[in-house]
């Protein structure tokens, strides 16, 4: 066992209101400068939808992340390292600017400076790449809130995997939001992709960074990252990515995206993991085993052996304590309601997601379930608008069981708390039905519902 510490994040998608405050504050703080106009270290996607850059999750096309080769060894999907060295100068698997979006501005000045004429002045869009007038046809969030639905959503790679039967009709509408930053993976394929060794993972906290002095602009990291969260600054010729706001984190402030998240859905914390078990966990043959394997890599911070191991590894006492109080550990490992994003990429991502509940599909039928009534609870979860299969393709490589379990816990919590809210006696059978006790359920409730600042970060 080799204990290491990792800063990790949980986003509770059930609370996400899709407002992109995180994106804007992050952009304003880090990337509102030339060369990275198109870059959003943090972005929010409407699902179903194509994502940013478009269809990035389709690794058959983009070749990001890892796969198991014929020998059962982990290899970069973009090709083994030899192959990549040989193709340094002609990397074909890069999203083009059109896959992100062609950034633009407007002739704002014309509004003020326009000479007298026959028409009201207007600010036309103009490309920030070519300087030419343009018709805007894609943006950082083009398919927001199901915009362009029937024409655009069928290209969602996740939706394609789920079923031919998901109909994009008014009656069956569903959507939710997926905010994304760099995953700061335990097994980062971007780091492994870099021919210059410019990408690295910080020993003390696991933050993945690009050394700006060492980067040579090969852009193999862009290909290597299956989440497409490493970007190319076309002015400096270097790669840039989310830094998990290390200048803030180092002084005890949460990341900008977390603190400014108006939905209060982001949690930050320390987890301890066994670095010796990472490769094995990333290499389990069955994709459905990746999520449990990833959980197994995380260590119990209360276990005396782990504490001893952490001390041996030079992890400071306050970090060990932080790991013991970590909301990440609670949500991921104890309550098991937070799931990894695309574990099948085999990078062991460290940003976790609580899946979202949604209304039941009963609008026009006139029947319905009382979502809080324990008698209907699980039936209601089975008829939620967001297909469980869709969530499973995002979070558990298609295994619906952990997603359903997480949603049931959320539903049970609501049912249990409704009794208390209305002054009825507590019903301990409700937490039991989802494998929890009342005390744990109430702790989970406080963490999710009250979500005090000090407990989120």
């Amino acid at each position, binding site marked *: 066992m080799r204990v290491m510490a990792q800063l990790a994040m949980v986003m509770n998608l*059930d*609370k996400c*209101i*899709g407002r992109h405050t995180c994106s*804007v*504050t992050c952009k*304003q*703080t880090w990337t509102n400068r030339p060369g990275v106009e198109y870059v959003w270290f943090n972005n929010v996607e409407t699902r179903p939808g194509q994502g940013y850059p478009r269809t990035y999750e389709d690794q058959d096309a983009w070749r990001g992340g890892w796969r198991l*080769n014929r020998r*059962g*060894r*982990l290899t970069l999907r973009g090709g083994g390292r030899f192959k990549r060295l040989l193709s340094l100068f002609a990397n074909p698997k890069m999203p083009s600017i059109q896959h992100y979006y062609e950034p633009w*501005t407007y002739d*704002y*000045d014309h*509004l*003020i400076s326009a*000479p*007298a*004429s*026959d*028409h*009201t*002045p*207007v*600010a036309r*869009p103009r490309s920030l790449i070519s300087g030419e007038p343009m018709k*805007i046809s894609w*943006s*950082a*969030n083009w398919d927001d809130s199901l915009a362009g*639905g*029937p*024409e655009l959503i069928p290209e969602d790679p996740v939706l394609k995997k789920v079923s031919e039967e998901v109909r994009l009709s008014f009656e069956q509408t569903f959507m939710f939001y997926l905010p994304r930053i760099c995953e700061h993976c335990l097994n980062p394929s971007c*780091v492994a992709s870099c021919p210059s060794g410019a990408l*690295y*993972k*910080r*020993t003390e906290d696991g933050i993945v*960074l690009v050394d700006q002095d060492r980067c040579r602009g090969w852009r193999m990291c862009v290909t290597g990252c299956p989440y497409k969260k490493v970007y190319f600054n076309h002015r400096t010729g270097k790669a840039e990515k989310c830094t998990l706001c*290390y*200048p803030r984190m180092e002084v005890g402030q949460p990341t900008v995206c977390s603190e400014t998240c108006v*939905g*209060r*859905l982001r949690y930050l914390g320390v987890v301890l993991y066994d670095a010796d078990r*990472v490769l*094995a966990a*990333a290499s389990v*043959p069955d994709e459905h085993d990746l999520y449990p394997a990833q959980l197994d890599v995380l260590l119990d911070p209360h276990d005396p052996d782990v504490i001893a191991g952490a001390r041996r590894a030079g992890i400071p006492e306050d970090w060990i304590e932080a790991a013991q109080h970590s909301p990440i550990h609670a949500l991921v490992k104890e309550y098991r309601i937070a799931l990894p994003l695309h574990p099948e990429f085999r990078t062991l991502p460290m940003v976790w997601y609580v899946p979202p509940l949604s*209304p*039941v599909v*009963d*609008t026009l039928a006139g029947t*319905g379930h009382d*979502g809080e009534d324990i008698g209907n609870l699980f039936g209601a979860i089975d008829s939620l608008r967001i297909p469980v299969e869709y969530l499973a393709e995002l979070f558990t490589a298609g295994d619906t069981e952990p997603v359903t379990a997480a949603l049931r816990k959320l539903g049970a919590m609501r049912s249990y*708390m409704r009794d208390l*809210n209305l002054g009825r006696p507590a019903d301990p059978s409700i937490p039991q039905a989802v494998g929890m006790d009342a005390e744990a359920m109430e702790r989970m*409730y406080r963490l999710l*519902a*009250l979500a005090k600042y000090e407990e989120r970060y």
Partner: protein
Amino acid sequence: MDQRPAGLDGPVSDLLLRTRRLLRPGKVSDDLRTITYQGGRAGDVFYRDRWSHDKVVRSTHGVNCTGSCSWKVYVKDGIITWEAQETDYPSVGPDSPEYEPRGCPRGAAFSWYTYSPTRLRYPYVRGVLLEMYRKAKASTGDPVEAWRSIVDDPAARRRYQRARGKGGLVRAGWDEAAELIAAAHVHTIRRHGPDRIAGFSPIPAMSMVSHAAGARFISLIGGTMLSFYDWYADLPVASPQVFGDQTDVPESADWWNTSYLVMWGSNVPVTRTPDAHFMTEARYRGQKVVVVSPDYADSTKFADTWIAPHPGTDGALAMAMGHVILTEFFVRRPTPRFLDYCRRYTDLPFLVTLRDTGDGFAADKFLTAADLDPAPGDPEKFKTVVIEEATGRPHVPGGSLGFRFGADNAGKWNLDLGGVTPRLSLLEHPGTEPVEVLLARFDDGSHTMRRGVPALRVGGQLVTTVFDLVLAHYGVARDRLPGRWPTGFGDPEPHTPSWQEEITGVPAATAVRVAREFAANAEESGGRSMILMGAGTNHWFHSDTIYRAFLALVTLTGCQGVNGGGWAHYVGQEKCRPVTGWATLAGGTDWSRPPRQMIGTAYWYLATDQWRYDALGADELMHPLGPGTLHGMSMADCLAKSARLGWMPSYPTFNRNPLDLAAEARAAGDDPAQYVTEQLRSGRLRFACTDPDAPENWPRVLTVWRANLLGSSAKGNEYFLKHLLGTDSAVRAGEVPPELRPRDVTWRPQAPEGKLDLLVSLDFRMTSTGLFSDVLLPAATWYEKHDLSSTDMHPFVHAFTPAIAPPWQTRSDFDTFHTLARTFSALAGKHLGTREDLVAAPLLHDTPDEMATPGGVVRDWAHGEVSPEPGVTMPKLIVVERDYGAVAEKMAALGPLVDTLGVTTKGWTVVPDKEVDYLRGINGEVRDGVAAGRPSLARDVDACEAILALSGTTNGRISAAGFRELEKRTGTQLADLAAGHEGTRITFADTQARPVPVLTSPEWSGSEHGGRRYTAFVLNTERLKPWHTLTGRQHFYLDHDWMHELGETLPVYRPPLDLQRIFGDETTGVTVRYLTPHSKWSIHSEYQDNLLLLSLSRGGPDLWMSPADAKRIEARDNEWVEAVNRNGVVVARACISHRIPAGTVYMYHAKDRVIDVPRSEISGLRGGIHNALTRLLIKPTHLIGGYAQLSFAFNYLGPTGNQRDEITVIRRRSQEVEY
């Protein structure tokens, strides 16, 4: 399975990596996957440098979103770099989520404006006008004469008017721009009168000092401040109708206390972004959430149940829910809590007379003590009557309007029933007879229903209770009553669940289930069911009826005045918590009273000549059961009547200069009020609104600040351009034919184009308002000035603070208006001197004026039905002295009237003598001039201090004194609510340090006492203070004549207007309903031009439509389309989504024409804003005044600028666009 040890790639690769591992400083992991470093990484210093900054300043955003979020503004090297939310709100308590962080992406993108190319850096004047002015000034040598010479020359005037909105702005210096503006003001006052000058600036809560500075200037010169809350259609007229209050709602943290939440036409994540988390989190506490929305709005994501009624039919669903609740919780199983609540806090037990129509009975007027008394006094006509259950005798409980005023009534204005139990229904009462009554319906051609009520003869009149009428109206059958009743929920008779299904498309079973759950939850939780309602239901023509049907649900179930329950209307940032101080400064009431305050909708309706195109006459709206007095009247006629009866304000008031009228009266040795009354009676003097197109009645000068009138709120935008401004427009409508023209209002053959002499605007960015302005002044942003912010959503006041000084030549609104005032005063001292101004003021709410119209019976002096008597049957006529040379001095000091007349809010008055002394101390004392010895208001910080010191929410002494005043009227205990904080005074520095919780105050109806969450009407339910209504209770029944005219005495369902029929629209093409809901990517037009938000959306105006409608016009996603109707043309790109219902398109509010709007194929002009397709429509019942809660107060009551009933034709256009 053969499980070899995990590894990477293959052996060759391993070898390579192991070798390299030795050659470099980083640590390659043992398994060769990754590289780690520790410490000393110079390659990352870039990000550390970028994060460093010099200071962080607290400020906020003065935008009409109700957010009032406190922000950290970061500054580095004297440059604003970015912003992030403050997280230091005082705690809500250990068992609730907190208010942090408050703020959304729009606010987070604000600093982009500071240095953006759309920032206005210098004063601008239209080149053609500036040239004329310079020339005229050179030849006349006097600015006022120069202005006169320009506007007196029709050709010159038309020349610069025609150039409006077409570029050609040139830079001018501040001195010259201010002089031109001041000259126009002086000339207009002298020639036409001060009421021809108007100011428009909305929502004081979003930056109180910036609002008050301009309003103070306009008010002190006698100009007209235009209302906004009603004009924006954000005012729910049902609120004054039902509660006698403008709007009072729970703070968002109170959603947490709700156990059943219906979000009805309110897209909380989009429009209440900073507070949406309370809703998402309350679900974890077991709150059940129902969303009612015609599309799959963002709020729907959080629903347990989604209900999608057809747009505009929400009232039918609410009526059916009321039917279910009355049936199950009142008749089949009377619920003690609900019955008790209704007896105490509603008008349901009060008696209403029944009138024999000849064809059956109809409910008429409230029975009053005057009906029981052979020689009644005036107050008796406003004391309503119940039947006492124990004795069966009529009883006049305290608390009604007749107990509110006068020494005799001291201590009797309260809701204490003193052991009397009023009867809700007369059904079980001995001696009643079943009587068939006629009731109004609008869902089919029959118009009436016949149903029975139990009636009793009292004081010679046949009466029943409001409750019995309500049961009959909702169709809840009881034994022994005649008429046609639904046989059950499945009978499609009004107002059953099956009846609504045919109208709304919502399954009857769903309506039943939600109604039942809503009421059962209220019963179990003690009233913690809430309806959170928004623009989706409030922006319709008949929204007052929709809302009354909603309010019936929360009132019947005893949810109003309970934490976690009741109505939660959040449309517009109406709650300026330190309201008394703000109102004093903004109205200039410390120097002269009353200020001229006008209903915005009526003002624009006449000024932009939309009345000439309005085919919606009173007959379209009237109900056959009404007295028929509105028959044949146009809306302009209704306005004129409301004005002459003193119901609503009307400015410009007369067809003469009010300064000249006062002077003439004095010259004739007459009292000006008497003189004017006589002139009016004889017809020698006319109200300006009876001839809006006569040049002497035009508005002449308009200043707009903190607003984008022409790019956002102007319903009927193209009519504004055509008639008010006199420039190009895309109006396509024809004027109404002679038979639809007004009866009492003069129709001139030629509609004027270009009424306005001067349009001035202040802004920090370029909007349509700026594009069309004659003079454009560069404003400081929200990060460059001191000010105050508050909202209804949270209970704090907090500060704006400059992060940098105003850059370039920008100035704060405060400094700009003081600049204008100084320039004006210098010219006015010479040209105007001191004059008397005759102000016509309407009958006011919360004053004895409310008793001007006993029984709500309308009598018109112009028709000889009554004699003209100022302040009773017509407006009050008040002479105000204006020392025009001293306006600047008065603006900059707190005037003496606060010491003598005190400050008044909602009927109670306090003399702030100690506060005046205090303000002298901290602001300093003025040494010379008319304000010598008064506290200074020369700086924005001084104004902040004055607002805080003069208001009960921020000064415990004012609050306590106000409560003590109120106690004298109510006789109930109230002052203890302020006792704990009587010594507390919030200073401006406090608000800069951290958001400060406000104090419980009689300015509002809730209590924050003991850290409690604010919710409305707690003082009423817990302290028995009456509502400010006729009965003193929450009203189901409204008995004014005009409510009878429209058949709206009770909550009723009225369908959206059939504008296609009324206006005779073309029907060729694909016609769809046109909705303009609030946008995700902007706050009105603010931020819709912001590059960050444009990059996160579709980068310009788009029209959301269903795949079915897109198919009908053969448009694909992102193709250019045009939407056209009689009002104008919109050019936008199609955004096709299956979450939009077929038959309806959405253009999110507010799309200004400044960003990526090409020229239209249809008009040949630049495409219009979202409001290019809408127009103003006026509802006569919003014009009622002088009667109990139906009395005017500024932004409290008035016609709304509704905008949801509109339709449009959509078509795909050529994809080649020209700009």
